[in-house]
């Protein structure tokens, strides 16, 4: 059952990312990305991280991608996107990506087999996470709130239309 769920969610995730790459329409790209992030939330759930899974679905698939869809609506490129004329960029990016893939896999290959993940079934429950968040990681947590305030004010300042003199 677990394997079936994993391969189903992984297929959906990779397929949605491929659909985002292939799609010419920005709104469709954003919706494909919502699907990819939602299935990744399911993968987080399979990894004993229920709280992170819920946060992923609410914040990523909910908030951030809705923000993207809003921006797509505001920008509203009618004529569609230009096709990629330069074929060599595609080839070079494929080669670079493949090299990076091999590099990461080779670098991690010695340890991959030892990643059994058999121990500690219920470490990820929200009680433990919240306790850790408010004791050892208290200062980063508070600093993050300052970061969010700064981002909010920054976005308002950036997008404010200049008053007519």
């Amino acid at each position, binding site marked *: 059952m677990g394997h079936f769920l994993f391969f189903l969610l992984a297929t959906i995730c990779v397929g949605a990312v491929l659909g985002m790459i292939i799609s010419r329409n920005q709104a469709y*790209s954003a919706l494909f990305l919502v699907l990819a992030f939602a299935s990744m939330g399911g993968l987080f759930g399979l*990894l004993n991280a229920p*709280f992170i899974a819920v946060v992923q679905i609410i914040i990523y698939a909910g908030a951030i991608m809705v923000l993207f869809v809003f*921006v797509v609506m505001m920008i509203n490129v009618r004529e569609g996107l230009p096709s990629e004329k330069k074929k060599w960029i595609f080839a070079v*990016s494929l080669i670079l990506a493949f090299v990076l893939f091999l590099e990461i896999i080779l670098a991690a290959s010695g340890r991959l087999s030892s990643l059994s993940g058999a121990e500690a079934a219920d470490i990820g429950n929200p009680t433990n996470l919240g306790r850790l968040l408010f004791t050892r990681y208290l200062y980063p947590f508070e600093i993050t709130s300052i*970061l969010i305030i700064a981002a909010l004010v920054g976005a308002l300042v950036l997008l404010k239309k200049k008053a007519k003199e």
Partner: protein
Amino acid sequence: MIPSSYFFILSVVLFVLGIIAFFIKRDLLTQFMSVEIMLNAANLAFISLAKATGSLDGQIIVFFIITVAAAEAVIGLAIILLIFRQKKSIRTEDINLMKG
């Protein structure tokens, strides 16, 4: 029991796909989306390794990454909207003010 290495390999695949999308897309908005894909692939790697080591710290880091990604998305989209207001285009070929 699914081995954590499966999740790790999936995260590498997603990261590489994000890089390919970043290079072959020609407008700012979808390039920004591919940056989000790469962030999510990193999250998946963190969580799979957190499970493999039996520690919660990886999940905490992912929590912070999601928060920072939200802030980054807000600022990035604001900048993209500003560029669109000034240039009436978000194609990367049109943004060549600093090209020699």
